[in-house]
């Protein structure tokens, strides 16, 4: 029998089973903890740090940290939201995120997170403006890593679900990027039907499916109407058909 216990998130009592991460317990209880690299069905990796919470006063990533019985977790406090805003700003400034011309606008989780956290104007950080070549070699897929936020969702999906390991991090530090298994995407065995390419996998406009652009007009997409939260998927499955 797995052991059940409770703990608090922002004063609200939440149930958990031994082994649950804070994120799993929160999701089950309907409490939203903001996140970018963590998504349903993939091993959590704790890299974006947007899900950072304080557990008994210590900051941890909710997606990887086991819940502790009777602990107090701070989620949407002023302090934590401040860190999250800074983290999301860092991601905006690290890549080229020009929402008005991006196909992902309205279904982009980074954009939606910016809105949710109240980032509505130009921010204080410098823009790094990367110039990485766009890979349009594949007949069905375009890869624009200038929009990549290094969440690793495509890497994990391709490795753990598709069993192909088409994507992997290469380089280190600020020079890190997502590489493909070959000189170009066309040389790999990636396919449109792979989970790695699924519209719900890439949270931004880095992986784009050719011929599917603007499947729903901008302005009529999920996050154009509802803030990113539990149960609001980036892509409405019916629209995407």
């Amino acid at each position, binding site marked *: 029998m797995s052991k059940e216990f409770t703990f608090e998130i922002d004063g609200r009592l939440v149930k958990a089973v031994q082994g649950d991460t804070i994120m799993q317990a929160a999701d089950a209880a309907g409490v939203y903890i903001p996140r970018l690299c963590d998504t349903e069905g993939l091993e959590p990796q*704790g890299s974006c740090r947007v899900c950072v919470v304080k557990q008994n006063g210590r900051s941890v990533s909710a997606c990887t940290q086991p819940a502790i019985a009777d602990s107090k977790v701070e989620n949407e406090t002023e302090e934590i939201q401040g860190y999250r805003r800074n*983290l999301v700003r860092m991601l905006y400034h690290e890549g080229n995120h020009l929402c008005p011309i991006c196909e992902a606008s309205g279904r982009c989780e980074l954009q939606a997170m910016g809105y949710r956290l109240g980032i509505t104007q130009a921010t204080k950080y410098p823009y790094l403006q990367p110039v990485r070549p766009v890979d349009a070699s594949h007949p069905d897929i375009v890869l624009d890593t200038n929009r990549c936020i290094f969440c690793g969702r495509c890497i994990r999906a391709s490795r753990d679900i598709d069993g192909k390991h088409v994507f992997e991090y*290469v380089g280190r*530090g600020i020079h890190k990027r997502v590489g493909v298994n070959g000189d170009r995407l066309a040389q790999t065995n990636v396919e449109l039907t792979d989970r790695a390419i699924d519209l719900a996998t890439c949270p931004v406009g880095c992986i784009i499916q050719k011929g599917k652009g603007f499947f729903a007009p901008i302005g009529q997409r999920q996050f154009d109407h509802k803030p990113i939260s539990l149960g609001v998927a980036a892509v409405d499955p019916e629209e995407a058909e």
Partner: protein
Amino acid sequence: MAVKQPMNDQERVAFIDQVCRRYQFDRSRLMDILLDIQAELNGIEAPLMEAVAQRLSITRVEVEGMVSFYAFFSAHRQGEIVIRVSNDIVDRHAGAEEVARIFSEELQTPIGGDSEDGRFSLEFIPFLGMSDQAPAAMIGATILTRLTPEKVRTICARLKSGVAPSDLIEHYGDGNNAHPLVCAEVENGIRQRGDVLLCEGIVDGAALDSALRRTPDDLLAELSESGLTGRGGAGFPTARKWRVAADTAAERRYVVCNADEGEPGTFKDRVLLTERADLMVEGMTIAAYVIGAEAGIIYLRGEYAYLRAYLEDVLRQRRERGLLGETIAGREGFDFDIRIQLGAGAYICGEESALLSSCEGLRGEPKNRPPFPVESGYLGYPTVVDNVETFCCAARIMELGGAWFGGFGTGRTTGTKLFSVSGDCARPGVYELPFGITVQDLLDLVEAPDAAAVQVGGPSGQMINSGQFERRLCLEDLPTGGSVMVFSLHRNILEIVDHFLEFFVEESCGYCTPCRVGNVFLKKRIEKVRKGLCGAEDLGYLQELGKTISMTSRCGLGLTSPNPVISTIRNFPLVYAALLKSNGDGLEPSFDIQHALEESRRLAKRRSMIYDPTYDDA
């Protein structure tokens, strides 16, 4: 010197096959496979990555992920001889930039590039571990110290005439540096021998002999009584670490020695590896006995590759003497052996879980914790990872007792500590002193009467001012893994801060957002401060950004990387104040109107009517 004929493509693939076979096509030995290929072929180009990937049944991009992570691997073919100049702040102050420039000129090799004839490559590396004999460089695996312009010119002339790097050494250093398997110019620089580690007369095997007479539980109690804490800097109680590893149910357990001494300004493990290797291995062997491990790894930083043959020989001799291998010291069922894992130039691998990733043939990225390595470490088995000095201390404790060891130091930080002192002092080197000594006492010993600032604990530590020299070196006041860098009045504090940030930007693994991106932003803003383009509000920006980085980063690197900025804003406020611009012109401090106007003036061929007050159209 016989000229090595370059291999053709077919021979290169055959060589790769041979290397992969050497490691039984084991994916977890990818570090070793790539190290061997890099050493022989001077680079691991895409077709070679493909050949490795095929043989290990992985994808090429996984191999590329490895090659592009470690500084000592190259995705293109480098020169036959790679020259790496140590670029830490102490080496820079001692003239590292000029050294690199002369290498570059004499060998016709750009810094960060290769010579046209393919013979040489030249690059800076963040820290070689020789700042007590700076400036220093690594030529192939050979280390040359106290470089002067004349010495570099002589070295270059000899390299050009075909002299092998190992034949460049003119005199050997003291102690085991002159050992036939070391043959290094490096000097130990031992300035003060304490009672625990650097004292004479330590008898090989005495600690193990004493330990094997007692039960593991008994030894854990002894270790606990000693109060020994990890010597790498974090200061975690060693007994607790060993206890958890021993108590975690598992089929196998591992003991790993962290000899990836990468924190700029620390070089004491270099001395222990040279002079106390047996003691270190003995500590590891006792740890294996206590936790029930059959295998161990010494993770030796790539910069210390010159010590590898010697350390292999130490292990071999211990096997011959029955102190390592099967049935150790005649005890049935006590089997333990050690392999050496060479690193390849990554500061982050000094972080214990990143070190384990590297041992597993992965990118040197820290792992998510929990589970901690003592519960699930190397290949998922409980693993004790301790610093070189920690294992040496543990061995001494087993011989002479926890109470004896606890008699040194402060109540909370027991024992002696090896301090690596470098920078602006007359006697740089290694000092073994009890924990709790004041900074001033240490400065007196190293003869640094002009010290104006001391960096305690390396770039990730704290910079203190002369009013704080009465503070004590111990966990309860100023913790340090051993690095103490002394700076005199004529050093530029913000140049040092900027340099430390550059170090963190280069050495961040890039796994998590705050460390990967935030450190770049910190550095950019400090550059602006140095140019006089910041106002008082920029200090708030730096502090807030620093706090976000340290509060949200995934491992100790990001937790501590803002320290150079945060500690100097606190301890050297006047240095900042002198550079901050008052907002007199009503413009953003970062905006320099005169600079911005310059191009317009040039194009319009006239001055600004508004901003050039003496403007006269006539």
